[in-house]
């Protein structure tokens, strides 16, 4: 007997492929079986005729582009509307596509407008919509083979498709068809031998779609699929009940069994783990991978997560939905390259460090790729964006590093500087190469030109992967770029923004190449791509509110009520919903949602314009069909938290509807929570662990310290972390908290009295504020991580340095001209204004905010501050004559030979016989009316009240050290006054010079040095608010807890003593 060929129409390609495999496994011949979806058959029939008419292929991006062009010609909004056109074009494209799919002509639409909306405002909107639709319709009709034209082309082409005459077509009865597709099936049945495979038990379960009546049915046990049907296991009673009752009123007795599980998990990742664990248990009880599936309602987000997990666990899977091309490495690299326009530092460095760039080709084979060094250089040089910024910053960096390398006496240091300079040069070359490429991606050009420029940029900057899939992915992205040239069908010229929009849409729409589907593998894919694929075990995750079903919003351009009125006006028919007719027509066990027989195919020459309710009903049908695909076990789940926003999620109403159908009554939150299972890791067995991380966690939770030690023996990093954790939890202040233990020969690193290197008073004040910061900043020399950022204001340091500069220049000029104190007169005010203006202008050339308005605000603020200071100086009760400014001690020569200076550091003897050496810069020394000297230190920060019992570093260390230094410089003069001058707040903190002595200073210093020498570098959580090093230290709350917990440790006692005034 020869082979009888036939076509088999299945709801999805996945179902078609599996049917073929199952037929083969039953020993049936496959040579003549052509399994496909209905739209694929329509394409095969319509294609020759459509191509003959010169119609071009269609994609969704085209409709958006055409809608956008229509918007340019016929404005929908007033010209001054600030709303961006892109999102409006997307909404418009959907509206106009719905009109086309429903078979509405622009003329028909125009004729109905006055009847659609009673309000003038709405009529105006609809009139504009008619004009937009005319443009849209004309641009597509007879030019592109859009889905509507394809299906209608197939209907028209049936008479010429002679090859169908001797080829029976078998159709499974669970197809979900649009009206135009139903029309095609009915027409097909008139031209070919079409048979619907009828499954007797199922036919009674729900109302039949209208097309069933027009296609002769053959019982499945009389079809070529009888052997498959005979082999099918009938679904569990519980599942049958769920399928029948979903979305129905629920007031029935509880009749649950083990066939459905309602599951939740904390996050999507935990949900995926939980589902895979359940599938592994199913596999353990003998269900084959090929008999299980994961149906993802919205695959774009979850598919990669599941694929990664399955691949990691070595579970074979058959992927039925494509991952978008946009997720591949070359596509992501292309997007990163396009993000570099404007040369923002973060974008450029992300591109350089993430994209597969052919550095050897670009820089030459001897170039070193120093990604981390480039990143450091970018930050250090303070680059924000723009070609000029990059060029200037990197060129000056190369010059500076080269000069430093020349000056350096130490060969290792010189080599380091030279390497850094070379890296800066390489980075500069890359920027020089990148700039013309990016410059070319702006303005307007023809689509051909854009495709050419992008192809060049892509080929020059992005390498293909090394394996076969990597190469295919790269080629596919290149093809997508090349395809852009074909867009000139819609417009001759385009801006790059338009090009980027189309390119982005294409990358998301195109499927990425994938490895050959494995046989005997777990099925995974989007719900729509696995329709009709009957399996023993099915999991449907992602049933969270707003996720699945998604939010259905009304179309703002053609409102639901207008859509219904338009349909009525065109067909003369009123749409009646199943639910409304249900009580009279529906049999008790029938699903109202599947009842659409009110629309007969014979009169359905146009589709209904879908409303929100239609889309919702459609989603319900899809969900009900999906749960009906399981015959033995169904797992429904949702994640309780949105990982992106951290917000709690509720189960979707599909989930609650399924729970209600399962239990026979609606459930409130508490009952639902009792029904839903959630994995508790502490209740899982070791065999349930999916990976080594879970296994170790299990052992840790049950095995206690012994297990931790056993795990640590094999994992050095874990051991390091465990030690730190235990040390920080202990009551001792340890090396993991800030204790430093050094051998005697290195003690000079932490004990300033063991070294001759001079200290500054401000350095000791850092220690008093936070010992740990001192350790990071002055011993380990770790810079705080900084991110060059757009500047909105001066930093505190810049403000301070500007004040010091202006005050010094002003007072020096005053001293050198009339020598008198500050007086509030025109002359001195003019002098001050000139100096301020000059200083501000110099700053403006370099490191100021780049926005003129902010510069102006900052300058105004600074001027006000300096004027306040000037007025306070002029109004002083006992005016003194400014003598010296920025007077150095222990810092070498003074800036001016005429100014005094103490060349040697100030040496202070400690009670234990050791010495400390100090250096510093005294802001100002004045001569008072009684001839004594006045020593002051400007403070440009905020004034804070001095606490009585603790050491105030500036008052108790800095000023006494300055007073001692002045006494050494001017042995014949008396220091009559010393104080801290808070210039912003106009407050002073005086110190009585009579009470300052080397002995009193030594007592304070001795305690500090003693704590340092003992290695007590204690974190002070109270200082975290103003500290830039907090990234190294952890949460202030945790630091506070540890501080309390370890308060009895002697090292903490030493540190506390150093902070107390003797």
């Amino acid at each position, binding site marked *: 007997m020869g082979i009888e060929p036939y076509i088999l129409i299945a709801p999805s390609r996945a179902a078609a492929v599996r049917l073929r495999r199952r037929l083969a496994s039953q020993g049936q011949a496959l040579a003549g079986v052509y399994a496909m979806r209905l739209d694929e058959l329509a394409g095969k029939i319509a294609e020759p005729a459509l191509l003959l008419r010169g119609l071009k292929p269609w994609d969704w991006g085209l409709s958006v582009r055409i809608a956008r062009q229509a918007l340019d010609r016929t404005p*929908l*909004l007033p010209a001054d*509307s*600030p*709303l*961006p056109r892109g*999102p*409006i074009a*997307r*909404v418009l494209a959907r509206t106009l596509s719905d009109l086309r799919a429903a078979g509405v002509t622009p003329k028909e639409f125009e004729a109905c407008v006055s009847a659609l909306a009673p309000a003038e*405002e709405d009529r105006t*909107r609809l009139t504009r919509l008619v004009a937009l639709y005319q443009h849209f319709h004309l641009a597509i009709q007879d030019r592109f083979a859009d889905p509507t034209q394809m299906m209608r082309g197939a209907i028209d082409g049936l008479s010429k498709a002679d090859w169908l005459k001797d080829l029976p077509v078998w159709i499974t009865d669970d197809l979900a068809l649009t009206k135009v597709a139903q029309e095609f099936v009915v027409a097909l049945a008139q031209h070919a031998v079409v048979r619907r495979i009828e499954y007797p038990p199922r036919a009674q379960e729900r109302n039949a779609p209208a097309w069933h009546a027009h296609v002769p049915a053959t019982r499945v046990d009389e079809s070529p699929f009888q052997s498959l049907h005979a082999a099918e296991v009938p679904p569990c009673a519980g599942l049958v009940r769920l399928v029948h009752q979903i979305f129905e*009123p*629920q*007031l029935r007795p509880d009749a649950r069994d083990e066939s459905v599980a309602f599951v939740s998990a904390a996050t999507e990742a935990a949900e995926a783990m939980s589902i895979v664990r359940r599938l592994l248990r199913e596999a353990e009880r003998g269900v084959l991978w090929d008999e299980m599936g994961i149906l993802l309602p919205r695959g774009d987000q979850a598919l990669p997560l599941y694929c990664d997990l399955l691949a990691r666990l070595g579970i074979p899977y058959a992927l039925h939905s494509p991952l978008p091309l946009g997720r591949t490495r070359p596509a992501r690299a292309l997007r990163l390259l396009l993000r570099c326009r404007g040369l923002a530092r973060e974008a450029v460095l992300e591109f350089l460090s993430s994209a597969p760039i052919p550095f050897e080709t670009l820089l030459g084979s001897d170039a070193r790729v120093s990604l981390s060094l480039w990143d450091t250089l970018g930050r250090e040089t303070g680059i924000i964006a723009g070609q000029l910024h990059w060029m200037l910053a990197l060129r000056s960096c190369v010059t500076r590093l080269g000069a430093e390398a020349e000056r350096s006496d130490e060969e290792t240091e010189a080599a380091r500087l030279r390497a850094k300079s070379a890296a800066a040069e390489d980075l500069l070359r890359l920027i020089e190469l990148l700039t013309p490429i990016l410059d070319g991606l702006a303005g307007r050009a023809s689509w051909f030109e854009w495709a050419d420029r992008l192809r060049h940029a892509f080929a020059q900057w992005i390498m293909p992967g090394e394996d076969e899939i990597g190469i295919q992915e790269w080629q596919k992205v290149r093809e997508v770029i090349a395809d852009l040239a074909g867009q000139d069908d819609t417009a001759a010229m385009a801006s790059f923004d338009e090009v980027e929009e189309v390119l982005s849409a294409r990358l998301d729409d195109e499927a990425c190449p994938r490895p050959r589907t494995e046989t005997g593998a777990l099925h995974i894919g989007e719900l729509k791509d696995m329709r009709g694929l009957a399996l023993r075990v099915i999991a449907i995750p992602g049933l969270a*509110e707003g996720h699945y079903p998604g939010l*259905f*919003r*009304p179309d*703002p*351009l053609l*409102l639901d009520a207008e859509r219904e009125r338009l349909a009525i006006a065109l067909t003369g028919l009123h749409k009646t*919903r*199943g*639910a*409304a007719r*249900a*009580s009279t027509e529906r049999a008790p066990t029938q699903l*109202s949602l599947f009842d659409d027989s009110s629309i007969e195919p014979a009169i359905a020459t146009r589709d209904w314009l879908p409303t*929100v*309710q239609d889309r*919702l009903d459609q989603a319900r049908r899809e969900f009900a069909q999906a749960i009906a695909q399981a015959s033995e076990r169904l797992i429904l789940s949702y994640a309780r938290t949105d990982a*992106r*926003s951290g*917000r709690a999620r*509720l189960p979707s*109403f599909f989930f*609650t509807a399924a729970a*209600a159908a399962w239990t026979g*009554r*609606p*459930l*409130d*939150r508490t009952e639902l929570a009792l029904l839903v299972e959630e994995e508790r890791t502490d209740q899982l067995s070791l065999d349930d662990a999916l990976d080594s991380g879970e296994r170790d966690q299990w052992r840790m939770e049950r095995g206690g310290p012994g297990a931790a030690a056993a795990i640590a023996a094999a994992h050095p990093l874990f051991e390091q972390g465990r030690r730190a954790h235990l040390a920080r939890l202990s009551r001792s202040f340890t090396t993991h908290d800030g204790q430093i233990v050094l051998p005697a020969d290195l003690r000079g690193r932490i004990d300033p009295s063991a070294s001759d290197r001079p200290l500054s008073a401000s350095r000791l004040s850092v220690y008093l504020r936070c010992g740990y910061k001192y350790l990071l900043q002055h011993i380990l020399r770790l810079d705080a991580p900084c991110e060059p950022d*757009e500047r909105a204001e001066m930093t505190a340091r810049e403000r301070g340095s500007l004040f010091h500069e202006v005050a010094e220049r002003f007072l020096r000029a005053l001293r050198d001209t009339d020598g008198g104190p500050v007086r509030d007169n025109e002359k001195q005010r003019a002098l001050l204004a000139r100096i301020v203006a000059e200083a501000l202008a110099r700053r403006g050339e370099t490191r100021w905010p780049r*926005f*003129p*308005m*902010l510069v102006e605000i900052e300058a105004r603020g600074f001027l006000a501050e300096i004027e306040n200071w000037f007025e306070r100086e002029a109004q002083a009760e006992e005016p003194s004559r400014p003598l010296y400014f920025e007077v150095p001690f222990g810092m070498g020569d003074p800036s001016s030979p005429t100014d005094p200076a103490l060349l040697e550091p100030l040496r202070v003897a400690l009670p234990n016989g050791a010495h400390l050496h100090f250096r510093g810069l005294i802001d100002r020394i004045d001569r008072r009316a009684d001839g004594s000297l006045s020593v002051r230190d400007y403070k440009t920060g905020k004034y804070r009240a001095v606490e009585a019992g603790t050491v105030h570093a500036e008052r108790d260390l800095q000023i006494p050290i300055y007073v001692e230094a002045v006494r050494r410089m001017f042995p014949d003069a008396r220091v009559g006054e010393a104080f801290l001058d808070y210039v912003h707040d106009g407050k002073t903190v005086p110190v009585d010079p009579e009470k300052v002595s080397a002995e009193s200073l030594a007592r304070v210093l001795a305690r500090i040095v003693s704590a340092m020498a003992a290695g007590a570098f204690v974190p002070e959580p109270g200082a975290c608010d103003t500290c830039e090093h907090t990234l190294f230290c952890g949460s202030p709350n945790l630091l506070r807890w540890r501080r309390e917990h370890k308060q009895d440790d002697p090292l903490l006692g030493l540190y506390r003593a150093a902070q107390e005034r003797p």
Partner: protein
Amino acid sequence: MKAPRADETARQEVRGKAQRSFAIEAGAGTGKTTLLIDRIEHLIRSGHAGLLEIAAVTFTENAAGEMKLRLRERLEGVIASHDTPKIERRRAEQALAELDRATVTTLHSLCSAILAERPFECGVVPGFRVADEVEADALFEQAWQEWLTER
């Protein structure tokens, strides 16, 4: 036998007087939500309003979810009851079919739904979504930079 509540007359008025507006002030656990469900049921059964013409606004998403569940339970009870007149059963069935898109929601979601239906009139982009805190900060930063650049 349960004694009638002292405010039963007031409750009856709230349930049955569809043409009147009420402000109900009562402590937690006294049955405010139940009374609202009663009133919605009355509005639907009597034909004064379809479910899609009613807005029930709650303070939290949890409360909205709970209210929807209770409303579903009530409507299903009406449909199942043999005492329900035919016309009222049909109205309840219609309401049940529309329940999933009924405005039983938080104030934020209600506002969002109004904006979604009339975005152009309200001056927002169609297809907008409510930004979370991180997105809002990023958008603010972007708008701030653009504003500064223009000055």
